[in-house]
């Protein structure tokens, strides 16, 4: 608990920015959903033949898991891409259904005698709608808005995966760092926000239904609060001309993203926008292609096999040449390697390794039938991942490998839930959790040299980027990377501080 408050205290500015972004995303999406959904609800109530299919479509959209919906939207022009815009589109689509449904239900529940009276008094259809039907349906509609807003608070946390900001940033960072404090730093205020919105809208709903005069006061107060929060959040979104730095969603990537960001901040005057913790390799790659992010650190082997679908090759410089050409052909520039090779590392508990004399992957086949493996989804699917590994080393485990979140895998191994995992050679947790890397004695894994990949147009626009990042060329050794990962993963230190210390040391000529 104290750790949580300490974290908020040391990240106060970022915390409030994320809260404001979170609220803004919820308010904007709910607001647009109301503006679009209420008219659709009116049509649905008046003309079931038109409204029915529309409501059915909204209902269908809601059954799509949010992460999948973000995935569908990413490649689309205009509404797609990395960032708040895509998240908004998805959030609006989700919020539509409850608004449409409750609007239609509220309108259909109005007493026929009240409608007859409205007609007999000489109201036009429009007057009847605005003066009688909508006011009477309002408590029901507000109930729908309440559902939409509360669901929205939850969905926005997931939207951090595509760089939309909000409190999900802390949650993903915490997951990547395996640090419950950081997860809670995002999850607790998100839950509080959901409860607060729920309570406020419930109170509004009740006060409208009870026909008290202060309902109007409540609405005005809520509107003013919303506008202020929206202003804060809007101002907190980075400037459009900022250099956007991305990263995938695990500790080392966050550290590397921070490393690129701080290096540029140190040696240039460019405004920097950090979009760390994006979903994974493919999201980062797509974002870099579209220019949604300007750079991130990729690994040569990953680019070769996963992105360019080429067969695995063992020669590190040949691989670099190949992907440099392939990236260039798609408008991206590969900068010189940072210095370490983060190949896949097949890990076992050191105790198991010692007791069985296990040091090389070729020895694993004899123990595998009694063991359970846990792999990340990407490793299971990738050409240079599990299928090739299994055939190269003749591996057969007791059961099909478990699909695990990369960030939870090391602890699952240390805790005994699985016996073998595929991690990163530079993972700080390897030392911290007393795990052993098995040697790839048949040279199955291709080289995974860390390379900054930059949107080519950005380099042309800002020629100072290349010399600034040249400060890093070959200076980030595997040992340095493992130290930084360990500082973040095991010692729970702030990646920004760890990177700053590393850069300070570089400046002093120490490595």
């Amino acid at each position, binding site marked *: 608990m104290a750790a949580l408050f300490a974290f908020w205290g040391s990240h106060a500015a970022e915390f409030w920015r994320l809260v404001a972004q979170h609220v803004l995303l919820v308010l904007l999406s709910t607001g647009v959903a109301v503006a679009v959904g209420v008219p659709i609800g009116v049509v649905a109530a008046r003309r079931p033949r038109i409204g029915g299919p529309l409501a059915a479509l909204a209902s269908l959209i809601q059954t799509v898991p949010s992460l999948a919906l973000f995935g569908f939207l990413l490649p689309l022009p205009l509404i797609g891409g990395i960032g708040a815009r895509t998240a908004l589109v998805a959030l609006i689509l989700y919020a539509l259904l409850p608004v449409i449904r409750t609007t239609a239900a509220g309108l259909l529940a109005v*007493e026929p*005698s*009240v*409608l*007859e*009276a*409205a*007609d*007999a*008094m*000489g*109201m*036009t259809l429009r*007057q009847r709608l605005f003066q*009688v039907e909508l*006011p*009477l349906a309002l408590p029901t509609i507000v109930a729908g808005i309440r559902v939409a807003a509360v669901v929205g608070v939850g969905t926005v946390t997931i939207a951090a995966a595509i760089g939309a900001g909000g409190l999900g940033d802390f949650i993903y960072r915490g997951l990547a760092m395996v640090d419950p404090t950081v997860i809670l730093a995002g999850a607790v205020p998100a839950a509080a926000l959901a409860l607060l919105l729920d309570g406020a809208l419930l109170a509004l709903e009740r006060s409208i239904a009870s*026909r008290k005069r202060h309902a109007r006061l409540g609405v005005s107060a809520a509107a003013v609060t919303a506008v202020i929060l929206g202003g804060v959040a809007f101002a907190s979104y980075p400037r459009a001309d900022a250099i956007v730095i991305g990263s995938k969603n695990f500790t080392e990537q966050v550290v590397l993203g921070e490393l690129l960001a701080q290096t540029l901040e140190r040696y240039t005057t460019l405004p920097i926008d950090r979009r760390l913790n994006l979903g994974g390799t493919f999201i980062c790659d797509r974002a870099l292609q579209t220019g949604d992010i300007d750079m991130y650190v990729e690994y040569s082997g990953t680019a070769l096999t996963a992105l360019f679908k080429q067969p695995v090759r063992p020669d590190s410089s040949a691989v670099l040449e190949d992907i440099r050409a392939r990236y260039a052909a798609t408008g991206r520039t590969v900068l010189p390697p940072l210095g370490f090779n983060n190949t896949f590392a097949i890990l076992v508990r050191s105790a198991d390794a010692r007791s069985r004399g296990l040091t090389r992957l070729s020895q694993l086949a004899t123990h595998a039938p009694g063991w359970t493996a846990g792999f990340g989804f990407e490793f299971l699917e990738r050409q240079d991942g599990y299928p090739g590994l299994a055939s190269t080393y003749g591996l057969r485990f007791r059961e099909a490998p478990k699909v695990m979140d990369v960030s939870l895998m090391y602890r699952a191994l240390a805790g005994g839930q699985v016996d073998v995992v595929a991690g990163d050679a530079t993972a700080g947790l390897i030392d911290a959790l007393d795990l052993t890397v098995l040697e790839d004695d048949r040279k199955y894994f291709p080289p995974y040299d860390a390379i900054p990949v930059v949107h080519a147009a950005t380099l042309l626009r800002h020629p100072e980027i290349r010399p600034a990042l040249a400060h890093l060329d070959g200076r980030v050794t595997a040992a340095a990377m493992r130290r930084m990962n360990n500082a973040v993963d095991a010692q729970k230190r702030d990646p920004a501080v760890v990177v700053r210390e590393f850069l300070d040391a570089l400046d002093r000529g120490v490595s």
Partner: protein
Amino acid sequence: MISFDGVWCRRGDRDVLREVSFELPEGETLALVGRSGAGKSTALKLINRMLDPDRGRVLVGGRDVATSDPIVLRRQTGYVLQEVGLFPHMTVARNVAVVPTLLEWKVDRIHARTQELLELVGLPAAEYGDRWPHELSGGQRQRVGVARALAADPSVLLMDEPFGALDPITRVELHREFERIQSRLHKTIVLVTHDMREACALATRIGVLHEGRIVALDTPVALSRSPEPAVRTLFDAMSEGTAVTSPREGGLA
């Protein structure tokens, strides 16, 4: 003032009104009486164009209503429903003010008119104006319904079973109110009821509808001597009514 000229009206696959013709002079109260489904409410709704006839003409003040804009016509015509249909999200005063507001009267005039009408129906604005419909009894609600119908001072008042949902004591009380108000305002009133006793008590003329036709139209006294079977049935039903429905002094709710 109001006349029907060979009116046919079809609803669904049924001729609800067949060749209905009558004339109602200004300031009179016509009660349309008949069994359920005889076409009473349909006839009423033709007068303010809530419905339109398939054949024939309906004239109000000598003018064919088909030539009037239904919205304008309805605002000029008072209308009272059995279920009252007060707007639950508006106070009593705002309910009464609905038609004047639609007609865009000045705020002061609306306010004065609302006070006057609530006074007229025995619900002083100071006490009842800010109440909500759900805080009123059934009888009070119907008084508000009458005040609302009279708000823009229409010359014609249409009442669709206005006292049908009330308990007998309240009904009798409202009958008296009705007579008191009508003796002051002299509106031309068409009242739909299935209760011949109510018709006799309130109306200057009674029209008996049977299967879509007017089978008799006369003063209550003249009608009570009619040999027409449909009329006799209604009078017989009336004499079988219980004593509770007869007017009596005191003990009013």
